[in-house]
């Protein structure tokens, strides 16, 4: 493949992955911000409702991590 075609292919693959990557970065930032809020709150201000919300977030993350991983293709 000529070098120009290689460069175009590389740019296209990065552009294709970009929206998903941006969304992922935003999701990561949102979740970590919520978790950090808990660390900055005094212990007596952390309610059972906060805990329930955190537990639901933990469950959702665990489900994402535990999805089966396909072995690599050749």
């Amino acid at each position: 493949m000529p070098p120009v075609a290689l460069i175009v292919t590389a740019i296209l693959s990065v552009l294709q992955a970009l929206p998903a990557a941006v969304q992922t970065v935003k999701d990561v930032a949102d979740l970590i911000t919520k978790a950090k809020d808990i660390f900055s709150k005094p212990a007596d201000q952390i309610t059972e409702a906060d805990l329930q919300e955190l537990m639901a977030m933990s469950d959702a993350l665990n489900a994402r991590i535990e999805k089966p991983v396909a072995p690599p293709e050749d």
Partner: protein
Amino acid sequence: MSRVIALVLAGFLLAGCAGGKSILQGGSNIFTPVQNPLRTADQAKLEAAYITLATPVAAYMELPTCRRGTVESITNICGRYGVKVDLQNANRKAYAALTVLRNFRARNPTLSGVSLLEAARQAMIEFQTVAYLNKVGA
């Protein structure tokens, strides 16, 4: 004799009004209920720690798996199979420890779950170490 008993009872009642820690927790009050040393805040902070660790890991798991013989790069955005398996194993231990703690606290509101809290903290540290060694997350 009855006066002595009345005085002792009055003493106990006054001690109850005065508040303070239960005698079972090193205090002097026999009327104060035993406070569970595992507070909502302790469990919430552990959940928050798990979220902080698991968020970048979940993002990594959602990358397409690298083809055999290739590695991730700026033009080949993928997640290594071996790393994904290691992260899953570490996550399984951390999440299991978290679940044990949740269930214990829900079923035994007046018993201390401090040892389980410590076990869950250790599992989080192991999870963090696996993620760090594989350069996933902070």
